[in-house]
């Protein structure tokens, strides 16, 4: 065996655009992207699915708006825009970190992540980010074109609103990713959490404001939701898109989103620390 192959610990490094500590995570973003390529066919059906969802809501809301022009400050074209753009951004912020983690626990593949000098939370979120970038190209863009062609979807309130909306959606991704990681860690102690994840899935659709605007909910409920992260996933970015949140209010909303990203990352980290002491590896 050649002698210099194993020479001293690596010191010389290629020029880095990113801080060194982040490079593995940047590489994981790329891996998530490349990995998803293997299943690109799935996204053609994805476009159809999203189109069907929005069509169903179109007819439901059309029926509801037969009897009035405005509900809770939303006219029909606003509510249609709310629904369509809501599903469009869902294709971006959505990820399966919770399920991935749960499957890794039940199948025992989690060990392969634990033998690497990486932060599991960071690694899973980075991989999910790569997948989201992939979906942006394969799913979000075509779905957007299709929905704008078929349905009366409004354009963003202004260029500034669109910019704020884009930042807000990026933060939504991190809120969902951090939340999913935290929930996924429960699998380590509870082992079988697929039922729980299913409940979370539907609850999130409702509480994020994907199904209908939070302002349609009873007042007490709305007050309670103000103290929770869920409406910052879908409702808040959509309000910015529609121009219902502007200026200081929009800045404040973005600030609260950042707060929730940090809080949920901290929660996930704490839950991981708490659970990982209890890891029992399945099989092998």
């Amino acid at each position, binding site marked *: 065996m050649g002698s210099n192959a194993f020479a001293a610990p690596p010191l010389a490094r290629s020029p880095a655009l990113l801080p060194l500590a982040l490079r*593995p995570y940047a*590489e994981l973003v790329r891996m998530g992207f490349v990995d998803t390529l293997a299943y690109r066919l799935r996204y053609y059906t994805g476009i159809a699915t999203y189109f069907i969802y929005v069509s169903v809501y179109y007819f439901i809301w059309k029926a509801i708006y037969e009897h009035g022009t405005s509900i809770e400050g939303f006219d029909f074209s606003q509510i249609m825009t709310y629904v369509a753009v809501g599903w469009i951004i869902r294709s971006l912020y959505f990820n399966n970190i919770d399920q991935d983690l749960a499957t890794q626990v039940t199948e025992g593949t989690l060990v392969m992540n634990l*033998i690497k000098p990486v932060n599991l939370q960071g690694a899973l979120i980075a991989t999910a980010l790569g997948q989201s970038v992939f979906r942006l190209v394969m799913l979000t863009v075509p779905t957007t074109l299709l929905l704008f062609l078929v349905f009366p979807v409004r354009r963003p309130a202004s260029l500034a609103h669109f910019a704020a909306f884009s930042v807000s959606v990026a933060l939504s991704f991190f809120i969902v990713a951090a939340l999913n990681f935290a929930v996924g860690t429960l699998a380590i102690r509870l082992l079988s959490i697929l039922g729980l994840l299913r409940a979370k899935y539907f609850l999130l659709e409702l509480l994020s404001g994907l199904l209908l605007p939070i302002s349609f909910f009873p007042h007490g409920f709305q007050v309670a939701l103000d103290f929770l992260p869920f409406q910052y996933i879908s409702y808040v970015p959509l309000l910015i898109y529609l121009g219902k949140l502007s200026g200081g209010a929009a800045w404040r909303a973005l600030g609260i989103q950042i707060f929730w990203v940090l809080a949920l990352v901290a929660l996930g980290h704490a839950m991981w620390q708490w659970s990982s002491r209890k890891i029992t*590896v399945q*099989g092998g």
Partner: protein
Amino acid sequence: MAPLVEVRDLTKEFRSFKRREGVWGAVQNLFVREYVTVRAVDRVSFAIEAGEMVGYIGANGAGKSTTIKMLTGILMPTSGTVVAAGWVPYRDRRRYTRQIGVVFGQRTQLWWDIAVVESFKLLKEIYEISDADYRSRLGLFAEILNLGEYMHTPVRKLSLGERMRCDLAASLLHNPPLLFLDEPTIGLDVVAKERIREFLKEVNRSQRTTVLLTTHDLSDIEELSRRILIIDKGRILFDGDLAEMKKRLAQYNQVKFFLKDRSQIPRLAEVTTNGLGLERVDELTYLMRFDRAKHSSADVIRTLVNRLEIRDLFVEEEPIEEIVKRIYLSGEVA
């Protein structure tokens, strides 16, 4: 110098609940749970010096994998201590894992759906391997392990042997001083096993990489390690030199002989009169096993050639499997 790995009174207990059987039992399970504590690893102590290659053997469920998982920082011990490469594996997991390579024969660390080389690139970033080191090590592994042909194939399309070679390369890309292998040759054919053994010997020799490997296949151990640890029911039954173990514990020798032709078969009964056991391998091939303390090989051979027409014979030491089996049965080493 302190040993590279030092394990003291290492213990791991798992608590699991006892499941009752049947429908009524399942209903009862919902409300009342009875827990049982299983001690998978029981006060295990040993030390491994830098550069050693140690075989860790035991039956299924003996506690091998649980030990490895504590040594690699995946599981937290219930009690006892591990210090390896200067770290406490569980506590310092992220810093410690830079010092080790791990292969679990039943799992892969490679990304399933994408080309092998993509996983290698990820490892390059994770371990901060310089471009030059990465290229030269990968080139070398590709040559010795013959990876070249399928480096650009998705892992799911590789055979078990090919995948295992890639996993081995992946575990050594950062040139760790300490390598853990859990069943690295499981399910592989003879040629693939041989290639992997040669590779491990080479890495151990040229890099002084310390290797701890578990296996079912005792021929792995005979080929690779001078020292073995035998574990059963969570306890270490034997820790020492393989040759020493053979010398001390081999009770039997065996003579393998081939009869000249089938006419000799009825006469086999004559040779078993003085308490020598006979084992049939095939129609004309037999094994005669005898206690070394009671009979000499010369006597046994004399008996055989006097009474039978024999085409050929060999005297063999008792296979290591038999010795190990005896150690398990007695539960301790004499």
